[in-house]
């Protein structure tokens, strides 16, 4: 069976089995095993690509080039992480009798399903399938957001779904228009919507139609990526969804949406010249970073805090691509990689803290968690240090690569603004995290006593992830570097 | 016996001689000023040797020390004394070279005096008596204000001669017979005011009073008795004489001996005594014609001298 297909089928099967029900150990085993296998298959696919092959299926409707391979591997990685953490997470909730059978089925079904959709995004070569896959992630996340079935979770889900569907409508319109711009040249049938085909006939595309299409597609997929001003669903969704799912959104959906944006950007670049979409990406990216800044300063909830951080990071990647320099593009993809490695640590540790205090609001958690849950707090602080791009950790290197390219490139002023925003963001995070972690432990009066921290599957996962995140700053395995380079090649020289 | 060693021994001998000489004459100066003041007030005044009598008496007395105090209290006066004595070796007096001029110049001299002040002020805090603290506080404050003014004044005249080393400075002044410049008057006035302040004379301090609200130096040493007090008094006397010598060196070096010929040295001694006596008269007049300033008026006085010194620099070099 085709390696690529099996990479997609395994998570689907896992989802099916997980959705059916059955004894918990069995479900744990299937989820962990299935996602591990998925990750392994992702690696294998990437390997196949690195060995010079171009894994593909359905007559190139699914096709793996450098960019796909990178996103695929990262997706498989976070899929596995969130699966493993999820097991511990659910167990901790069950210990407190918060989990109904429905929830369990949803959980074990939706997580792998989401992983499937996520991976499908990263390998689809046909813009149509791309759209469908993104829609699937949306539907999957709706149920993950309403997982805890509270008032606020319904609200968040509604906002997410309406904004998301609107975005998807835009994306669809964009796809249609792009397709229209190539009537005649693209031809008929399955192959017509394929990105590779678009790239072949790029010069013949009708410029205005394409431009219109690109704009709509960027807005549409930008909504999924959470670029400002379409970012507004993010904080709500992140707060409500269970942490394992949040990780899938914050890394999987972000990478996936960015993948879509890049594909669109490449087509427009090949046909209209790069400036057009670069300008759009740079503007939206800068806007996102700037929007995120004040909300970090005034934030009242730890998971929303991280939502704004992910808005910031999407913005950074968009800026990297938008600066229009090879170094910056490399920086952006490096940033995507490091972000995918580091963000889970932050979300997981924050999630554990929230779980121990049965709320993610700062005023509920109180302060001085360091004395109460030292390991988790330490991990959280470490993660914050990493995701705020402090040296000597990974995101610093990617950010400085982007900044450097920016200062020497065509947009030094924009880069300076970007840098200033980064500094303020750090201060904001330092302030919030300091208040959360330090100080004498103060138990919020009106809550049940916070749980003591326990060493379980969840914490083990977090520690492992943290270790990976730290080590990766100094050593990225050669194949991964090769993937990043290949992706850069795809994005920079459109091939 | 190498020449270096000879020079060394020579310097050491000269240093001993000069230190001894100044130590010997210092008490006299104090008494002379007292006597002249008395005369101006139509009083008889103390006999000229009174200063020596006092010191002798104090040195013979039994040392009494506060039971609160630590060794710092004992060390203070000795360090003060030693600093003053060591300072004497940095200044040319009758011969146009300082015995230890190779040790340093103006900056070291000011530093040495600051060292003594630090020691005494610290020791004054050791008895726990409020007076000690009050005196120390006021003395350090006034000194802090006086020091920049003094330095600026010294710079003004030193830069004219192109050296910060008193020996070199005096020699240049004597040999090249530097033409006097209006700046010198300003600088002199500036430094003179500082000397008044530093030696605790009216209008800054009143050496004669023990009125707690006004006294500064006396308050510091209020708890001292016997030999300890003798050291302090003697050292302050030496300090005063030293300042006078400094003034005459900088602004009136005429007659200072440039060779070791007995005649020249004799002229040097006479000239020096004469010039110091003139300064003493000046101080007496200032003391008798002024009233003591309130503590917080002193900064104004000092700032005037600072201004004078700076003006001296400005008009000479611009």
């Amino acid at each position: 069976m085709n390696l690529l297909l099996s990479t997609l089928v395994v998570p689907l099967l896992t989802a099916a089995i997980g959705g059916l029900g059955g004894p918990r150990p069995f479900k744990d085993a299937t989820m962990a095993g299935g996602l591990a296998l998925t990750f392994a298959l992702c690696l294998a696919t990437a390997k196949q690509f690195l060995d010079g092959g171009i894994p593909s299926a359905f007559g190139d409707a699914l096709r793996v080039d450098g960019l796909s391979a990178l996103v695929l591997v990262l997706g498989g990685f976070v899929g596995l992480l969130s699966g493993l953490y999820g097991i511990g997470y659910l167990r901790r909730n069950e210990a407190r009798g918060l989990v109904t059978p429905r929830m369990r089925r949803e959980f074990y079904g939706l997580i792998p399903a989401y992983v499937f959709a996520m991976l499908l995004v990263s390998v689809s070569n046909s813009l149509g399938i791309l759209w469908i896959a993104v829609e699937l992630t949306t539907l999957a996340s709706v149920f993950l957001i309403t997982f805890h079935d509270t008032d606020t979770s319904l609200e968040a889900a509604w906002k997410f779904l309406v904004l998301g569907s609107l975005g998807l409508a835009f994306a669809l319109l964009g796809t249609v228009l792009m397709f229209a711009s190539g009537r005649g040249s693209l031809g008929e049938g399955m192959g017509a919507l394929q990105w590779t085909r678009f790239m072949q006939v790029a010069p013949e595309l009708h410029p205005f139609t394409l431009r219109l299409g690109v704009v709509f597609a960027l807005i549409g997929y930008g909504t999924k990526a959470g670029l400002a001003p379409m970012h507004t669903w993010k904080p709500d969704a992140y707060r409500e969804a269970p942490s394992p799912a949040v990780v899938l959104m914050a890394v999987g959906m972000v990478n996936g949406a960015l993948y879509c944006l890049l594909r669109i950007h490449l087509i427009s670049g090949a046909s209209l010249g790069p400036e057009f979409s670069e300008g759009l990406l740079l503007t939206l990216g800068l806007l996102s970073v700037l929007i995120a800044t004040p909300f970090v300063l005034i934030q009242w909830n730890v998971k929303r805090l991280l939502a704004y951080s992910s808005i910031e990071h999407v913005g950074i990647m968009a800026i990297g691509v938008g600066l229009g320099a090879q170094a910056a593009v490399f920086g952006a993809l490096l940033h995507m990689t490091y972000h995918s490695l580091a963000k889970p640590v932050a979300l997981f540790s924050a999630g554990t803290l929230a779980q121990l205090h049965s709320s993610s609001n700062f005023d509920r958690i109180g302060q001085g968690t360091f004395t109460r849950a030292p390991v988790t707090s330490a991990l959280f602080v470490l993660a914050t240090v990493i995701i705020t791009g402090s040296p000597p950790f990974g995101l610093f290197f990617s950010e400085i690569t982007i900044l450097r390219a920016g200062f020497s490139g065509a947009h030094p002023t924009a880069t300076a603004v970007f840098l200033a925003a980064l500094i303020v963001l750090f201060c904001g995070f330092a302030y919030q995290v300091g208040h959360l972690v330090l100080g004498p432990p103060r138990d919020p009066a009106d809550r049940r006593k916070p749980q003591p921290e326990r060493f379980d599957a969840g914490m083990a996962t977090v520690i492992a992830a943290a270790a990976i995140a730290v080590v990766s700053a100094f050593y990225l395995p050669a194949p991964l570097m090769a993937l990043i380079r290949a992706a850069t090649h795809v994005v920079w020289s459109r091939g | 016996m190498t020449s270096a060693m000879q020079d060394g021994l020579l310097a050491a001998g000269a240093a001993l001689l000069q230190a001894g000489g100044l130590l010997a004459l210092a008490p006299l100066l104090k008494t002379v000023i007292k006597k002249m003041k008395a005369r101006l007030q139509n009083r008889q005044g103390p006999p000229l040797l009174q200063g020596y009598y006092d010191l002798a008496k104090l040195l013979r007395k039994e040392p009494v020390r506060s039971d609160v105090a630590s060794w710092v209290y004992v060390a203070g006066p000795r360090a003060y004394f030693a600093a003053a004595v060591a300072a004497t070796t940095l200044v040319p007096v009758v011969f146009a070279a300082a015995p230890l001029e190779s040790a340093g110049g103006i900056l070291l001299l000011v530093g040495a005096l600051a060292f003594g002040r630090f020691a005494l002020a610290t020791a004054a805090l050791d008895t726990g008596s409020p007076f000690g603290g009050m005196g120390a506080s006021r003395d350090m404050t006034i000194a802090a204000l006086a020091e920049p003014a003094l330095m600026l004044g010294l710079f003004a005249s030193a830069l004219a001669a192109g050296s910060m080393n008193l020996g070199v400075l005096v020699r240049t002044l004597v040999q090249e017979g530097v033409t006097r410049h209006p700046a010198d008057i300003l600088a002199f006035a500036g430094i003179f005011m500082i000397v008044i302040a530093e030696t605790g004379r009216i209008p800054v301090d009143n050496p004669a009073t023990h009125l707690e609200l006004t006294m500064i130096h006396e308050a510091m040493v209020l708890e001292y008795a016997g030999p300890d007090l003798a050291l302090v008094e003697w050292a302050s006397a030496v300090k005063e004489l030293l300042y006078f010598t400094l003034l005459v060196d900088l602004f009136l070096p005429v007659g200072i001996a440039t060779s070791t010929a007995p005649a020249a040295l004799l002229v040097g001694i006479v000239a020096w005594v004469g010039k110091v006596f003139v300064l003493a008269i000046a101080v007496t007049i200032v003391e008798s014609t002024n009233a003591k300033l309130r503590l917080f008026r002193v900064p104004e006085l000092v700032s005037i001298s600072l201004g004078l010194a700076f003006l001296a620099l400005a008009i000479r070099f611009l």
Partner: protein
Amino acid sequence: MTANVLILSAAGMLVSAYLMVGQKALFTTIRLYGLQSLLLAIVATTMAISESRHELLVTAALTVVLKTILIPWFLMRTVDRIGIQREVEPFLNVPVSLLICLGLTVVGYRVSSGFEEGTQQVTHHLIGVALSLLLIGMFLMVTRKKAITQILALLTVENAVFLVAVGVTTGMPLVVEFGIAFDVILAVLVLGILVQRIVGRFESMDVSRLSNLKG
């Protein structure tokens, strides 16, 4: 002839959208949506016949089945079950809304003039209508407070997209076509489920009350 049919039905879709803007009764709005979809189907069929692009017939069929029958039926059922008939006062009153919609139409047409496909005015009109429809749909989403109305507005946007699809493309590949249709159904279903859960919890469909998540 065909051109007239196309332009007329497209215009009809636009009109239906305007009526939606002016309309407050939920059932009417749903019916208007059905009508709009029907017109879309007509456009598709006309295209299919005139340009003998038979796969467009499939699109037309899908549209009729889904958007003029299934979805309206489903939504009406939801409204019935909830038993709330009228839209609450929208953020903007009708005249202002209509004025703004006029502006949006102008914008849509202005952009569509970029398709200088001189010979056939049709495309120009179709795109113009489609973009206006899109913007008006969004405007509805912005101003209307009822969850159902928002769904309808969203579906209007969807219609606009399809109008473009049938109007200017040689039709998407079938697989994609089906996938998209399927997704639309799913989306509507999920939206419907959410609406019911929201109503079940808040005893109201007024989504403007869902504003507890700030900052």
